[in-house]
């Protein structure tokens, strides 16, 4: 036997109580993990400030129709607009038509692109290199990993819609919270390769100065380009999420208060269990001290026991949450909202840390008390 084994034997002394404690901690941490995951998904990932501030202006009739490039300047001049960038879908083919080789290629303006898409990050030197090379491109880090691309590699994209091909050099690799499955190159390449469509853009990415101004800016753009040859349709990048984002303040407080309540509840559950189980062992504590256990050892034994129980509950809760969210993300009806939402390793780690802290805090007072207990009194204790 070791002291660790002694702790675990103690933890499972009253099997039913231990099981109930673990289950209640597991339930609480399940809830906490789900809440943290939702928070992450809606607030840290898709709900990032830039995403909520971004609009897409496209041809009102269909995405396949073009818009005049000069709209960009006009949009930029509107109140509430911070940045505008043109984007054109090239629709070319990499290697072959196999699904694993499919990704989107967009022509855009390297000078302004990353200002609008601030949630994509790229090292400054790579951005500068891209801005200098008219035949350069930047690629999503996930794509680069998938295809083992490195900086300086050359990509050959065969034109499908357009009667010319792209020969690009990878100048930058950008990362994003969510896979974009895209590469971006200088739209001047299209203008030069196919001068007939010079002066036109596929759509515009618009960055408003605040999430609140997004609806106003959308309205303003579409009002301005209403009675023209090519009218526009402007919508938020995550239009369906707008409701969420508008409410985000409240949702945030709501999630936070649930998390706090959950943590507080397990703290009480765990504290109660530990206090009870330590009190029952008053005599044993005195015995241990008679055998030569110091105060510190007694404290560690009990705190260790509580932390072990809480961690067991936490692990069960976090793993169950992970499985549940995985299942929900694949379930018809829910997958629309939850696609790509996962319980990350970091979230798990946070959940386990919370559990361990709860165990520690809940056991500390009764354990400290027990460790200071007078041996003589303890040995005389009946019960």
């Amino acid at each position: 036997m070791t002291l660790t084994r002694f702790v675990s034997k103690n933890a499972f002394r009253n099997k039913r109580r231990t099981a109930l404690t673990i289950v209640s901690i597991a339930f609480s941490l399940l809830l906490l993990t789900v809440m943290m995951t939702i928070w992450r998904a809606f607030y840290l990932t898709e709900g990032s400030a830039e995403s909520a501030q971004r609009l897409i202006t496209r041809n009102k009739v269909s995405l396949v129709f073009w818009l005049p490039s000069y709209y960009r300047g006009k949009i930029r001049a509107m109140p509430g607009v911070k940045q505008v960038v043109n984007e054109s879908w090239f629709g070319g083919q990499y290697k072959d038509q196999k699904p694993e080789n499919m990704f989107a290629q967009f022509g855009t303006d390297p000078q302004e692109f990353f200002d609008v898409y601030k949630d994509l990050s790229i090292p400054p030197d790579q951005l500068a290199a891209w801005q200098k090379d008219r035949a350069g491109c930047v690629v999503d880090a996930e794509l680069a990993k998938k295809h083992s691309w490195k900086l300086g590699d050359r990509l050959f994209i065969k034109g499908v819609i357009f009667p010319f091909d792209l020969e690009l050099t990878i100048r930058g690799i950008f990362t994003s919270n969510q896979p974009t499955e895209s590469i971006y190159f200088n739209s001047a390449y299209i203008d030069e390769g196919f001068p007939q469509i010079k002066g036109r853009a596929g759509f515009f990415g618009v960055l408003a100065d605040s999430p609140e101004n997004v609806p106003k800016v959308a309205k303003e753009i579409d009002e301005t380009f209403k009675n023209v040859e090519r009218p526009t349709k402007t919508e938020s990048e995550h239009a369906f999420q707008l409701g969420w984002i508008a409410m985000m303040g409240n949702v945030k407080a709501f999630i936070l208060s649930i998390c706090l309540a959950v943590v507080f509840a397990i703290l009480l559950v765990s504290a109660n269990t530990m206090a009870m189980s330590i009190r029952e062992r008053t005599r044993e504590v005195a015995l241990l001290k008679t055998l030569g256990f110091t105060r510190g050892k007694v404290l560690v034994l009990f705190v260790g026991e509580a932390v072990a129980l809480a961690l067991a509950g936490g692990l069960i809760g976090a793993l169950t949450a992970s499985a549940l969210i995985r299942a929900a993300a694949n379930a018809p009806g829910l997958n629309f909202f939850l696609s790509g939402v996962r319980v990350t390793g970091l979230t798990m780690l946070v959940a386990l840390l919370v559990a361990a802290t709860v165990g520690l805090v809940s056991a500390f007072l009764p354990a400290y008390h027990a460790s200071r207990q007078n041996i003589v009194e303890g040995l005389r204790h009946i019960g």
Partner: protein
Amino acid sequence: MSTATVPRTATQTKVVQARNVSKVFKRDAFEVKALDDVSIEIGAGEFLALMGPSGSGKTTLLNMIAAIDRPTSGELLVLGDNIFRFSDGQSARWRNEHIGYVFQTFNLIPVLTAFENVELPLLLTKLSAQQRRDHVMTALKLVGLEDRVNHLPKQLSGGQEQRVAIARAIVSDPTLLLADEPTGDLDSHSATEVLDILKRLNEDSHKTVVMVTHDPHAASYAHVTRHLEKGMLLPPA
């Protein structure tokens, strides 16, 4: 018996030297004088029985010797150490090394097997798992329970439980064995077994034994019997 077989310390060293030890328990307005000016010397290798009516201070004296309680006044040296100068940690380690304590109610940990109960004090030492195992088995053999190692306390009889408790008390090979009414909860047959073991530990392993008892038959196993009355130690008979 040739002098060579008697440990050098047996005739010379005093294991316990108590001088004018008093202990007063204060409970709200009440004061209980549990020990009243007790002076006693216990030599190495001695087997001392401490008798006296309930409440006469026997347990209190034993607790003093084990450094789990402090006198209100007086001097007490145990194994030459002024144990009341010790910090909590020091006295815990000192007990672990030098004192074996046997209780009337056994005080085994119910979720641990006989083996694990005996091993408990060794978890505080630097011994390896194999060394611990050897010590535990030696102790269990000494009390005749080597075939009960994996039994839980509830699967043992009272007499067997007390023998496990004795094994636990001697596993770290302490100098001083303190037993507080070790046969108080046992039938006469089990009591005899336990007393025989204590006697053997005293004679063969040269443990100094201090045993509290109500029972004159039990006291007859000891070399010396002393009586406490209302906290006062009566002069030797």
